[in-house]
């Protein structure tokens, strides 16, 4: 029996809700959200997956549940990976998942990043602040509806914003290499992010 099959039996016996997840490389499992922490703890303590490589989330856009959190674990003893995925609770705007900072303190920053970029709320996280964007930033940039160019917002520093009167502007996209919508042929798509209001010959409207 291979290592992957053994893992499937071991997890399936204890948590019947677990299903195998289609994967092109490592063993992967879909785990119900309520048994997620217990499964990860079991993997860490009994299966030797002691190294938390990564936490991230995927936005599926039109699917319900919309967000999936994905964990990659590695073993420093038998050198195998496992991927654990769980669909988030909550609605499409406020997805929720349990925090695993008590299992791996290194999860702290990963979960903060995931919250910052995707807006997944990790319940029980000791300090769920933004990490890459500034405190008070109103959007979650890695969600699919967020445009590549960005959305105009106020500057993070109130004083500078008051003196300059300038907002944070979306990036100019004319001539950029951004041409595609994922999952479709590029040739069949209109440029999604291209800003047609200015180009090399026509000046930028507010310049």
């Amino acid at each position, binding site marked *: 029996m291979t290592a992957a099959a053994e893992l499937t039996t071991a997890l399936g016996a204890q948590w019947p809700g677990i299903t195998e997840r289609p994967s092109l*490389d490592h063993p992967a499992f879909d785990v119900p959200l309520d048994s997620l922490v217990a499964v990860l703890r079991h993997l860490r303590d009994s299966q030797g997956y002691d190294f938390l*490589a990564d936490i991230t989330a995927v936005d599926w856009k039109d699917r319900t549940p919309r967000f999936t959190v994905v964990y990659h674990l590695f073993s420093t003893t038998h050198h195998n990976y496992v991927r654990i995925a769980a669909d988030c609770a909550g609605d499409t705007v406020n997805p929720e998942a349990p925090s695993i900072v008590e299992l791996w*303190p290194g999860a702290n*920053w990963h979960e903060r990043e995931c919250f910052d970029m995707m807006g997944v709320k990790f319940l029980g996280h000791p300090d769920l602040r933004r990490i*890459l964007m500034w405190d008070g930033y109103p959007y979650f940039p*890695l969600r699919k509806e967020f445009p590549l160019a960005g959305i105009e917002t106020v500057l993070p520093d109130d004083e500078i914003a008051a003196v300059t009167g300038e907002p944070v502007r979306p990036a100019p996209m004319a001539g950029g290499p951004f041409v595609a919508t994922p999952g479709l042929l590029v040739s069949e798509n209109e440029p999604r992010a291209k800003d047609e209001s200015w180009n090399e010959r026509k000046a930028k409207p507010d310049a």
Partner: protein
Amino acid sequence: MPKEISIPDTGARVAMATHDFDTEKLELNIGPSHPSTHGVLRLKVELDGEIVTKCDPVIGYLHRGDEKIAENMTYNQFVPYTDRLDYIAPLANNVAYALAVEKLAKLETPERCQAIRLLICELARISSHLLGIGAFAMDVGAFTVFLFTFEEREKLYRLFEELTGARFTTSYTRIGGLQRDIPEGWLERVSAFCEQFLPIIEESDKLLLRNKIWMDRTEGVGVISKEDAIAYGLTGPNLRASGVALDLRKDKPYLGYERFEFDVPVGTRGDSYDRYICRIEEMRQSVRIIRQLIPNFPGGAWYAEDAKRIFAPPKARVLTKMEELIQNFMIVTEGPQMPAGEVYFEAENPKGILGFYIVSKGGGVPWRLKIRSPSFCNLSILPKVCVGSMISDVTAILGSFDFVMGECDR
């Protein structure tokens, strides 16, 4: 607040003053623009006298949204963005990214392609560690080493420029191959570099290894236990200095690393001194790998010739043959065609483990591309490590971590 005391006798005044001396904690901002933060890391430090009582790293000053950008372009178009992750070792990032996408495509590149990739990965490791050690030594006051290592790094960049056309932003790999084959005589020049490089490494090492000031500044500073290192997800020399022999080149070999003999240096105490020793030894091991590789350098194709929907053919053929012209056109406009599915690939980069998690719905553009960057994980232990150390040791700890903010903030 200092109290005003009106006692005529000076001795009594001093006694009173020290007795009633109020202390308060000082909050200090280090960075985001500070020489020891190697980029734009900002530390909010709370000090009790000279002792750090709290440390809160503020990152994101170099956040460019690489993951968002990746979702909006074809796989090959993202290669230049990988240069700008760990911009001290761009070649290693290029290779790690190409390997991740090729894993998605289940594509094996020919032996020569793999050998070139392995060679540039090791050269990138040497150049990254040269900077890491030079800057670390300079941070704690040993300026000479910096001059030695930067001269060697310059020689390497000359080799990189000859190979890729650029010193820093190399963008050398393509999905399924490389930008081009190695130039004539380049391997001999790499060999020559390695020969003259080893004595200089010994010389730099001599300047530091038993240097009293260096040892005082680094020994026992920023100690990380084995358990903490694993729990916080540290990788690379920072993890191995704490006594965990985790090196993906040995444990999960890719690019044929299993065919080469090399040792993985492991520390015992997990302090800044051990992190230095691990890096300098890794450079010697990299030279050892290169010396085994170059005499038996494989010939043949340097890109996957049968991957017609992934790798664009060489230009000479595109301009003369109809089929290749169409192939080139399709790959440039629609991107290398990938199957639907998920992969996660990690490579042992100079700074630690760089991982790419790709979710594909098919076609030439990823649905989601997550970058697991080693510097991000390595820095997450700072709030724990810095507490209790002197403010001057924070500089030494930062230097010993050898992080790059381009990769941390993405």
